[in-house]
């Protein structure tokens, strides 16, 4: 692997300054994805700016009753935090559904948002990939894609975003905070990840050189009745082939509020807006759940070998909504 420089930042402004406008420099969080990519040559930074020591490692209540989560909070600490478990159980479940205990103790919240797809073509520098080398082509479209996108993809890239955490955060309207040389900024998570279009190499709306400093979650009473279900090809330590983060508030047999986001179906965590529209105000029954799932999946464009995901996601949405409704009724 390429030799690289290593610097450790002690404050946010210093970290941003150290990175500067250097396109060959990268922030290093837990390194659980970046270091792997450096070993395989996908990433070849000349310089790493280690941000793990930054004072961004706290989970705090906001004045309005939401949560602010620092960018260097580890996945392990996030999942174990009592307020996360109480107010946003699907978020804790999502984090715990990812990786392994060792990885969660290293991986950071900021790094989790910015992790790269595990598409086997992206991670192999001997193969073409529009995300890695723009214009080189996407062999997954005609090749191996049984775990690739069914929603929001393009002919240029059909890779899926690997994060579990981000799926739950998407359901709960998280906002990403960042720092640049020109000062701080923020982006709703719904706008944080860019559509694939013909620029799959541009993954986020973060300005160049920006450092993710944290996430805020607005207060969401519905989130207290939430859950994350992840389906994968083995019981642990595998990326999702489909996942659902859902929160459901039912009053008098009618869906009053619902949050629904899908994982492993698109280049970004997928907020199921169409399904939420069908559900809101409708009777909380199996028919509604199925109609909502079908509405969301109308836009699905499966490839020859991932059509099962349409069935899987339909089944999964219905199953999770049904379980939440049953639990709320108890």
């Amino acid at each position, binding site marked *: 692997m390429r030799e690289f420089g290593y610097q450790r930042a002690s404050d946010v402004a210093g970290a941003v300054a150290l990175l500067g406008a250097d396109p060959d420099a990268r922030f290093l969080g837990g390194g659980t994805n970046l270091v792997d990519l450096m070993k395989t040559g996908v990433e070849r930074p000349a310089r790493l700016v280690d941000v793990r020591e930054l004072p961004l490692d706290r989970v705090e209540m906001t004045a309005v009753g939401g949560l602010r989560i620092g960018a260097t909070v580890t996945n392990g600490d996030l999942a174990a935090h009592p307020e996360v478990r109480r107010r946003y159980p699907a978020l804790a479940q999502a984090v715990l559904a990812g990786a392994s205990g060792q990885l969660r103790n290293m991986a950071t919240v900021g790094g989790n948002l910015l992790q790269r797809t595990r598409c*086997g073509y992206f991670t192999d520098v001997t193969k073409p990939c529009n995300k890695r080398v723009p214009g080189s082509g996407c062999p997954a479209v005609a090749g191996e894609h049984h775990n690739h996108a069914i929603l929001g993809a393009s002919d240029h890239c059909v890779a899926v975003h690997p994060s579990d955490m981000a799926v739950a955060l998407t359901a709960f309207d998280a906002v990403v905070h960042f720092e640049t040389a020109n000062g701080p900024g923020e982006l709703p998570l719904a706008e944080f990840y860019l559509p694939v279009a013909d620029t799959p190499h541009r993954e986020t709306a973060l300005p160049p050189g920006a450092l993710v400093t944290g996430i805020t979650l607005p207060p969401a009473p519905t989130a207290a009745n939430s859950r994350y279900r992840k*389906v994968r090809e083995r019981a642990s330590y595998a990326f999702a082939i489909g996942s659902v983060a859902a929160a459901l508030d039912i009053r008098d047999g009618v869906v009053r509020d619902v949050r629904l986001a899908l994982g492993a179906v698109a280049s970004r965590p997928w907020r199921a807006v169409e399904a939420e529209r069908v559900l809101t105000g409708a009777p909380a029954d199996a028919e509604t759940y199925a109609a909502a799932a079908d509405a969301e999946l109308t836009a699905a464009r499966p490839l020859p070998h991932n059509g099962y995901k349409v069935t899987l996601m339909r089944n999964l949405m219905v199953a999770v909504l049904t379980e939440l409704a049953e639990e709320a009724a108890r």
Partner: protein
Amino acid sequence: MTAVTTGTPTPTPSVGTAHTRVEGRDKVTGAARYAGEIPFADLAHGWLVLSTVARGRIRSVETAPVLAMPGVLAVLDHRNAPRVETDYTGLMGSKPDPTCAVFQHDRVPHLGWPVALVVAETSEQAREAAEALVVHYEQQPHDVDFTGEHPDAYPLDSHMPAVTEKGDLDAELAASAVVVDAEYTTPEEHHNPMEPHAATARWDGGRLEVIDSNQGATWVVGELASLFSLDPASVRVRSEHVGGGFGSKGVRAHQVAAVMAATVLQRPVRVVLTRRQMFSLAGYRSPTTQRVRLGADADGRLRALEHRSLSLTSTVHEFIEPSAGVARVMYDADAHHTANRVVRLDVPTPTWMRAPGEAPGSFALEAALDELAEKCGIDPIDLRLRNEPDKGPVSGLPFAGRNLPACFREGARRFGWADRDPRPGLRRDGRWLLGTGTAAASFGAGAAPSTATLTAHPDGTFTVRIAAADIGTGARTALTLVAADALRVPPERVQVRIGDSDFGPAMIAGGSMGTRSWAWAVTTAAGELLDRLALGTGIPPEGITVRSDTTAAIGALAPAERHSFGAQFAEVAVDTATGEVRVRRMLGIFAAGRIVNPLTARGQFLGGMIWGISMALHEEAVRDRASGGHVGADLAGYHVATHADVPHIEADWIDDPDPRDPVGIKGIGEIGIVGAAAAIANAVWHATGVRHRSLPIRPDRVILAGAPSA
């Protein structure tokens, strides 16, 4: 001279009693050094460069820019590498795989073919330079498509004949009341031992010395001596600790490349494979397409049995996965036809992988038996018991013990089989459908000639020297117990030294033959040593040493069908809405001769059974048709069972004595995986009513198969 202190019977025999590994503390504290981490003065590091095309010729290699990179010492490729000799037959009875005879020509027969070695002062420099090396190819169209109907397939003999046929198959099928005719497929599977392949080569006083991670020092010495036209006595291979082998650790490209570089540079050179390189260079299990036709009377008695298997090999070397061989041991029929065929494609050469032949073959055959049991309305265990042969179905030889019925009886009792409702798709636990399944297992119990040296020391201790390999199986400990009993001393007084070709020729750790073969040599030597000591002449300071060679004894063994047997049981839970399949419990009962160390034996059985879970549900290497190479060739992309996938799982064994056998030990390295995938697949049918005939039983396959109609 010191008084002799042997001859007193030990209070309890060591064999049959659980013993922790003699090197266990070294391993868990890191004191045990593996091949890639033993320090050498003046060590240089080689890094292999693999082809990025699946077929073609090397047009040019741009070595000059790489030679100018920091620390780079040399670039070896087909233009400047030492020539090697490949016209010989090795210990395994075959010519060398040309994949190991690196850099001899410009042809590229598969993606991931070694095209160059970059040697540098540090491993990092070598890797960076290797990845920067530009190789130009003249690319040719490739064929990596493995299909059951490939027109170029042909039968291939291996350690067994390709084809066996007796009886009129069509007539017996026509006369059968019940017929099963099904095709089963298994994917390309990789061994991926935890410790990657690693070798360090150096010339030391005119001798070639290789520190290696292998399954047999004798094997590797023989291959390296032949390849480099050296006297075997001038080559020494050591392999003290090995972090798993599973069939993949014979002679491979990295050892040969390391020897070449050490020869050219005249300094020690180490070559270590990356995980991704192992997917191309370490061998693998071929995918198989198997057709099984069974015809039976209404009572389940087999009239016709046909098992045809197709596997693949490379264009440069013939290797066959003999999956149809298992039927030649397991079941007889009036018409009995088996055939192993192979097709050559532009892919790396496959090799032995845990239970070669039996693992995929038992999946097809034992799943077909389950289908036959369903069609006949007979319990799957009863069906097997009704078809127990009294002699080898093809060989006609007597069985040297066949305790399969006892395994089934004990397994059925402990698993609670008697209460099983045979109808599928009936049992539920919340979102999970539940089912149970069973399958039979067998694996050969062979032995191969080995030598051992035993020394009695004046202080009453003994040293055993044998070129055995402990690839994680606990062989070192097992041989300590065997030697202790043979010498009638406690194991604390025996030191077993292994993994050194200078100890003399010995069998490899493979084919479930290692412990049986080595124990034979050790016991023989111990007997001779006790005879010498009984003369009472005392032990000189240098000790008394005897050497054994089992070649003649093994040659004198009466021909027989010698196998271990077993019965596998599994309970699974299936969510047909999400496609998830989880194994809830497993039980394996084995008849595997004398069990030397119950502690490590249990680990061996369980390890095989867990691999069976992986085989049934997870493992699959995906080859990309366009490039001809893998996609996701790492342990993130290639799934094996995690702890969370491993349920309540038990392995045990029944008494399986063979008084006529000189050692009584059978191999246990492979039988644990045999039948395990079939038991799980049969349980998935019992849960859902759907037959899954292609492994792995992935969620997408379960989802597409739909929910049970019941």
